[in-house]
Each structure stands twice: as structure tokens, then as C-alpha cells.
């Protein structure tokens, strides 16, 4: 028996007997629902108000990004990598760029690496700010959104200053980065790094000891370390269960081994623990930004290879060879030696991997993204089990899934 009860929620009786003397009800949660962080749909079996079974249904944002990348040339595919995990575009770029660079067998200069680290950490902050703001609003703390998006706007302004675009920067490209810093960018970054710690204090003042927030998150969505590992949780979901695994430390890339920072972990294993992990990660990101800004090396921002990157604009006026390189690069692109490679980076959501196969032509044979949000949906049932249906909002929020990343 099914019945429409409005707002797109359909109820069906399963015929199974629950522990409270009633029948189990199957309800549909999403895909259009304000607290599903996008277009996630969940089919939930309820016993009274308690969750007994939970099945995520995904694919409502399937964009064919991986297939689209096969139709684009190597340097064009950067653009679609921006758009799968749309809260951390530069980190997606970085995974793809590192993979292509590994196939090409090139190393980017130190200044490019430092700029990549700066953009990655800014993105991590921006991504955590969206998480904090939207999670706050879902648990009734609507002020959080205003505070968090104030700082996020500053980060997006910095993105715009360095790359000309607010969100999908396509800033990190195979062979280096798109453009060098401007004096105004460094000024903005310096000011941001100086003011951000006090802003994080402000968020903590609003939430950390807030009795409503604590009672809605402490003990909710328990995920013991063993389960987290078995279910493949990654990023803050794993570290919130006390497992100190961060790709920036365990498999450093782009010179992360040169920065002094700590892995944020919490042994609480619940939504509150994951909140603490993300707050700590924001503080660590500011620390890394400070170090990167102070030690920003001079030098080129791109590899010196005219087959992969276009010549500087001024050379086009004087050198015929530069014109030929420019023409070849923008009409047929460059080739990448055949082979396959997997590279993973740490995004705000966890291990963001990129598997690239080349058959030696101008286009990728296959581009596969290992999405952190997708694997973080896996522990959802474990976390929501036997919780009230109202706690589901906190539990979905704590997984920090980006549906563009899940469905790609």
C-alpha cells in the first residue's frame, strides 16, 4: 500500500513487524529535498521513527564527465575536472594534472608547486566553509551560513584575482599553473591568513559549546574506526573515527612534505568528532597557507616545454617557431606517452583520485575519478541505523557528500 503525503514523500508499508508493535514503513527521502546536499535520494525503512534500513539512490546528477573527458584533448579536459566535485575545483585539477604529468614524466618548478599548495588549501577552506554553513543551517543555526559565506566570498575573490574566475578556476594545469600571482593577490592572501584564525574562533564560539548543536551531534552517527576502514570511509569521515590517514602526510605530493602541519583526528567517532576534525583542518590549512606565503619561491611557474604549454605572448611577435608551437598546440594539442597511471590527492572530502589511460594520442583514452563523496556514502546506513529520522539530516550533513562528485 502506498500513499502520497505531500512534499514528494511517498510512504509504503512493508508488511514487516517492527519492535514497537507497528509495521515498518518505507519512505522516500529526496531527490529534491533541502537537506540532502544536492540531489541525493534515500529509501528509508522506518520502525516508528527509527531507521532500520537505508539505501541511497544515486545518479540524479550523472553528467557523463568521465566520458566527456575522452572527447576533449589533454589540455581541454582540465575544464571538466573542475565540475565534478564543484566545491573543490583546484584540487580536482591537481589530481588530473599530476596524473598527466606522471605520464609525461615531467616535474613542475617549485613556485608552481607552492602555488598549487596555496590553491589547494584555499579550496579546502572554502569547501569546509560550505559544509559548516550548510550543516549549521540544517541543525537550526542559520547564522553559520552568513558567517561562513562571508569568508568564502573572500576566497572566491582571491580565486578571481589569480585566475579570473570565482569557482571553476581551471587554474592548475598539466605542466604548471595558469598564471602567476599578482601583488594584489598576495596582499589579499596575507590579510586573509591574518584574519582567518579569529574568524574560526568566531565559528567555534557559535557552535562548539552550543548545547543544541552538541545534543544534535554528540553520539549521533557513530562510526567506529574498524567500521570506517571496512566501509572505505575517507577524509574527515575516517579521521573523525581516530584513524590518522591523510594523503598529504602519508603519500606527499606537490611538496606537502616541506610544510609543518598536523593531521586532525578525533576519537569521538560521531558527528561532533567530525565537526572538530574539520575545524582543526581549517586551522591547519591556514598554517600551511602562512608557510607557503612566507616561503613562496621565485622562478618559473610552468615547465619549459613548448610541446605542452603555449609560448609566452611576447614571443609570438618575434619567433616563427613560437607561432608554429602555438598553432600546433591549439589545433591538435599534445600527445602523451601510452600507459596508465593513478594519482590521488587529499581533497576536503578525502582521497580524490584520478586514473588516466593514454593510448599515445591527443585525447585521453579513459579518465576515471575516484570520488571521495561516493565512498563516503557507503557508511551512511551504518551511521543512521537505529537513529531517529530527524537525526538523518545531521548524518547526511556530516558525510559532506557533493552529489556532482558522487554521480560525476
Amino acid at each position, binding site marked *: 500500500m502506498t500513499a502520497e503525503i505531500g*512534499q514528494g514523500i511517498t510512504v509504503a508499508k512493508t508488511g514487516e513487524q517492527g519492535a514497537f508493535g507497528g509495521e515498518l514503513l518505507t519512505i522516500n527521502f529526496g531527490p529534491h529535498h*533541502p537537506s540532502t546536499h544536492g540531489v541525493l535520494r534515500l529509501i528509508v525503512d522506518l520502525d516508528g521513527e527509527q531507521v532500520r534500513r537505508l539505501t541511497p539512490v544515486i*545518479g540524479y546528477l550523472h*553528467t*557523463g564527465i568521465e*566520458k566527456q573527458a575522452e572527447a576533449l584533448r589533454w589540455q581541454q579536459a582540465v575544464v571538466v575536472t573542475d565540475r565534478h566535485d564543484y566545491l573543490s575545483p583546484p584540487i580536482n585539477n591537481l589530481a588530473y594534472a599530476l596524473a598527466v604529468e606522471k605520464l609525461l614524466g615531467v616535474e613542475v618548478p617549485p613556485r608552481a608547486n607552492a602555488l598549487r599548495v596555496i590553491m589547494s588549501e584555499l579550496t579546502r577552506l572554502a569547501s569546509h566553509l560550505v559544509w559548516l554553513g550548510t550543516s549549521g543551517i540544517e541543525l537550526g543555526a542559520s547564522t553559520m551560513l552568513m558567517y561562513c559565506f*562571508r569568508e568564502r566570498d573572500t576566497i*572566491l575573490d582571491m580565486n578571481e584575482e589569480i585566475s579570473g574566475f570565482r569557482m571553476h578556476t581551471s587554474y592548475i594545469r598539466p605542466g604548471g599553473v595558469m598564471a602567476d600571482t599578482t601583488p594584489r593577490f598576495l596582499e589579499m592572501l596575507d590579510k586573509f591568513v591574518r584574519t582567518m584564525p579569529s574568524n574560526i574562533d568566531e565559528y567555534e564560539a557559535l557552535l562548539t559549546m552550543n548545547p543544541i548543536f552538541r545534543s544534535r551531534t554528540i553520539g549521533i552517527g557513530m562510526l567506529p574506526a574498524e567500521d570506517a576502514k571496512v566501509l572505505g570511509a575517507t577524509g574527515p569521515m575516517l579521521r573523525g573515527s581516530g584513524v590518522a590517514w591523510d594523503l598529504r602526510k602519508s603519500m606527499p605530493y606537490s611538496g606537502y612534505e616541506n610544510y609543518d602541519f598536523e593531521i586532525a583526528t578525533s576519537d569521538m567517532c560521531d558527528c561532533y568528532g567530525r565537526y572538530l576534525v574539520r575545524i582543526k583542518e581549517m586551522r591547519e590549512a591556514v598554517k600551511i597557507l602562512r608557510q607557503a606565503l612566507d616561503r613562496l619561491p621565485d622562478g618559473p611557474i610552468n615547465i619549459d616545454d613548448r610541446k605542452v604549454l603555449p609560448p609566452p605572448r611576447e614571443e609570438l611577435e618575434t619567433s616563427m617557431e613560437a607561432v608554429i608551437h602555438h598553432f600546433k598546440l591549439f589545433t591538435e594539442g599534445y600527445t602523451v606517452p601510452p600507459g596508465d597511471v593513478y594519482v590521488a590527492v587529499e581533497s576536503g572530502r578525502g582521497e580524490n583520485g584520478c586514473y588516466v589511460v593514454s593510448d599515445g594520442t591527443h585525447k585521453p583514452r579513459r579518465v576515471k575519478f575516484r570520488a571521495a563523496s561516493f565512498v563516503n556514502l557507503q557508511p551512511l546506513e551504518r551511521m543512521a541505523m537505529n537513529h531517529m529520522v530527524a537525526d538523518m539530516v545531521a548524518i547526511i550533513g556530516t558525510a559532506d557528500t557533493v552529489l556532482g562528485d558522487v554521480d560525476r
Partner: protein
Amino acid sequence: MGIEALAESLGQNVLTTTLGKLIGWGRGNSVWPLQFGLACCAIEMIHTATAGVDIARFGSEAMRASPRQADMMIVSGRVSQKMAPILRTIYDQMPEPKWVISMGACASTGGVFNNYALLQGVDKIVPVDVYIPGCPPRPEDLLNALMILQERIKARGITPLP
């Protein structure tokens, strides 16, 4: 009281207008959007609602979760083939009069994704009033689209759709 004195005292306290203009004014300044985030553009939509740009200045800060309470649907992001029937259902559930803003390149034309998975423009399934270019558009672009829509709503008044 003479008729002139009456007219004078009324002139200071009474505005005359047409019913159409009055309703258009009311509708145009309280366009409640449906809280319907799809992809990247939804993040810029949230930015539009926050303090920096503040859509509340235009009376559209009340994002409604239920389509029954919404006047306007902002299609913020790419619409997949799987999402298309749901989007249409939600549009059908909205009460008349209703408006649609197609936010961003993906919603308007499919954007960079000319492939099997994506609807090549949301106007294939719902009528669109305003298109916004950009990937994603800036929050200011969304505000501009809202202002264009408001002018249209005010101009239309109570005239039924053709």
C-alpha cells in the same frame, strides 16, 4: 464641506491605481524561490542569499522547500536525464502564476556537456522566463535576472498569459 475641500483632503491620503498594477507590484516584490539546488550554480545561489549580495533586498530571500509555496524555480545547475521527470513534477506542483529562471550554461543549453547524460537545456521540459549565461554565473547575474523578472511580473499585472 465643499467638494474642493474634500478632494484636497483625499489627495493627501489616497493613492489611485489599477488593480493590475497593485497586484503586479505585490507579486513582483515577493517572488519566493523554490529551494532547488542541483549543482555548482546552487552554491552561487546560496551566495546570492547571504550577506554579501543579499537577495532579501529584492524580497526573494524566503527560499521555500515545498513547491506549493514557491513562485519561482531557479534551475541552478545541470539537469540529467534521470532528474528531468522529477524537475517537471516539481514544476507542475507549483501553483500558478509561476516563473522559471534557467541559471547557468548547463541549465540553459547543456553547457560544455554535450553528451548522453544531460538534458540539453531545461527549456525542453519547462517554459523558461529568464536565461542566465555563465558557468556558474556570478551572484550579481542572478540578481540581475531576478530584477528583469520582477519588471516583467509588474508589467503583466493580472493579464492572463497568452
